[in-house]
């Protein structure tokens, strides 16, 4: 167990900056996800924590001790990779005991820990079988168990679930959460899948183009996104973010979604305040597909829209709407009866709406002080 601190870390590969001035503090025993699209710098960041790559600038420390120059084998980190790297010529038992044997632990302890881990991973019945006989899903379980059993100071996982099929991924997410609760290890988990990050992590570091976009709890990155990138990356389908013009009406501020939308949205105090602070006439208006309601009544936050397309995806209906020149999505229960071509009235929940600056794309409705999460422990 250890806390990890990255201070002003930059990593250049030739002319390419993979990670740009990253400051990140992973508290002891927390599960932190590094989340972002491919090329965002998340794997490079993990490699620098592991000691596989050295930062071009900046430092990495564990428990306050600078380990920037410490080689990987002396950092006490455990790994799980996407391509599990199991010794397939050995039995499951041997794979699990390997790390403990290398560390010179007593045979009795090894036996006990192997049995416990096998039990936890539901691999007991497989213990004395060759690893080669395991399914893909069992192999990945074994890979995780083998790393966890040596109780490394820091546990690094690089997209460990991305080769698994959907149903098993659900199961493994739950197992990993349980594992982390039991082991209370510091875990850094690299993924491009926002569901995995939301599901597993105590905190999520959202990265894009080498830069940290936001570091916060899953609830924070979902409901208080720091900028347009985070707002769109977290949640599926993505948050609707549309241009809106702000008018100062008689009884407060109004937002018109798109230029041609007939109905204006009356803004509440929070959103009006954000407009005043930024002084902007145009903003980006963000609302999540799952927060739209269909209504019969007119109200201060209702507006008309046309149904363009309805997709039924299992338990949900994803409805494509158009108002003025603006396209956006709504998500509803599958029981909703709605057809393409219909005209409907929609209602926004302003508490769950966000405004973003058109140019900087930063969230205007958020107190920007806590965006990097450093002062929110």
């Amino acid at each position, binding site marked *: 167990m250890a806390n990890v601190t990255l201070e002003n870390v930059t990593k250049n590969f030739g002319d390419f900056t993979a990670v740009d001035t990253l400051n990140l503090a992973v508290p002891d025993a927390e599960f932190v996800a590094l989340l972002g699209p491919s090329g965002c710098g998340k794997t490079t960041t993990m490699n620098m924590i592991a000691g596989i790559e050295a930062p071009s600038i900046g430092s990495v420390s564990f428990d306050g001790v600078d380990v920037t120059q410490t080689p990987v084998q002396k950092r006490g980190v455990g790994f799980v990779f996407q391509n599990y790297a199991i010794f397939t010529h050995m039995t499951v038992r041997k794979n699990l005991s390997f790390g403990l044997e290398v560390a010179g632990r007593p045979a009795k302890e090894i036996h006990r820990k192997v049995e416990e881990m096998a039990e936890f991973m539901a691999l007991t019945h497989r213990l004395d079988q060759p690893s080669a006989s395991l399914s893909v899903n069992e192999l990945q379980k074994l890979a995780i168990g083998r790393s966890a059993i040596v109780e490394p100071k820091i546990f690094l996982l690089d997209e460990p679930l991305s080769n698994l099929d959907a*149903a098993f991924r659900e199961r493994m997410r739950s197992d990993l959460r349980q594992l982390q609760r039991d082991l209370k290890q510091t875990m850094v988990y690299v993924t491009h899948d926002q569901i995995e990050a939301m*599901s597993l992590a105590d905190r999520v570091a959202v990265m894009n183009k080498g830069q940290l976009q936001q570091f916060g709890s*899953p609830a924070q990155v979902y409901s208080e996104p720091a900028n347009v990138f985070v707002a769109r990356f977290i949640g599926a389908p*993505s948050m609707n973010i549309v241009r809106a013009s702000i008018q100062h009406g008689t009884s407060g501020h109004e937002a018109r979604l798109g230029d041609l939308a007939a109905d204006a949205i009356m803004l509440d105090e929070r959103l009006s305040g954000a407009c005043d602070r930024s002084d902007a006439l145009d903003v980006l208006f963000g609302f999540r597909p*799952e927060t739209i309601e269909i209504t019969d009544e007119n109200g201060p936050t209702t507006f008309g829209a046309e149904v363009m397309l309805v*997709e*039924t*995806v*299992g338990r949900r209906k*994803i409805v494509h709407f158009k108002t003025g020149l603006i396209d956006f999505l709504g998500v509803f229960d599958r029981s909703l009866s709605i057809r393409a071509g219909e005209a409907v009235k929609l209602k926004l929940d302003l508490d769950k709406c966000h405004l973003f600056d058109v140019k900087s794309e930063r969230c205007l409705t958020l107190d920007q002080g806590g965006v990097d999460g450093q002062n929110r422990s």
Partner: protein
Amino acid sequence: MARIVLDGVTKTYGGVPALENANLVVENASFTSVFGPPGCGKSVLLRLLLGLESVDSGRILIDDVEVTRAQPKERNFSMVFQNLALFPHLNARDNIAFPLVRRGTSQNVIDERLDSVAGVLSISHILHKKPAALSGGERQRVAIGRALVRDATAYLMDEPIAALDARLRDVMRVELKRLQSEFGHTFVYVTHDNEEAMSVADRMAILERGRIRQIDKPDTIYAEPSTISVAELVGSPKINILPVKIDGTAITAPFGSVDLEGSLLDKLKNTGGVVLGVRPEAVKLHSGNGNSETGAALISDIERLGGFSIVTMKVDEFEIRALADGDPTLAIGEEVSLRVDAADCHFFGEADGARII
């Protein structure tokens, strides 16, 4: 344009059946998805259809003409692969035009076709660029354009958008659907993603361990899965499969009793062993302790995913998953009561897994 029929197709590799007695009708101008977990035989089905492999038994027909032994060229399918296989030295225009140029199509026709396809795919502005200069989504559109530019019996797609990021996949899914209906082509779409298979297609074939388990509208498959395994494959989070006790007129499940109307109850009673399937979204959660007929439902896990949460409860030795909106104020260890409407209950035979109600 064509109606494609697989009639009792079987393919075996070294004694292991990869596809067994597959019967599938792909109607003309339809969008059919073939869905199944990895290793279920979907790629084999595609390869047999294309004519890259030959069937052991059974027949393949295109518009009632048997093509079981016909060469791939004679079957004239157009294909989009997951790894797009664009020519790196050709720009987008020449990549798309390639199938036409190879067939000696006149320049006028090529230009006309290309403009039409590029317009529909919104890629007219990037036609001069080479693949390396295009984004993932643009490359994907070019690959689809290359497949669509020529006339073909049907357009086959093998996980065509699996390599794209989530947001782009959402966009491309809708675009493919629109393309298919605008052109009126026959699309066969293979994927291991159940949501993609449901949203994109108007008919869906579920393939599992080499066998086609169900073919129907995606909505119908979701609402009335033909077997337990289909129910488990389609929909996420996965359906709860639970034991039930039928005693006189009472049906008792781990979450409590189910009020089933008389005729349905009789049907169940006449079937022998029965198991119950309940989708997580149908499990209604209430704070406070449950009813006396069953053990306490204790929350063992809460997966908070932003827009919704997956709540797992333990009742005796059984696990039940439920969905909750947003970020519920529930805690692990809390006792809750559960309710499920009879209309949301799926009953399957214990022995064969086949749907009863």
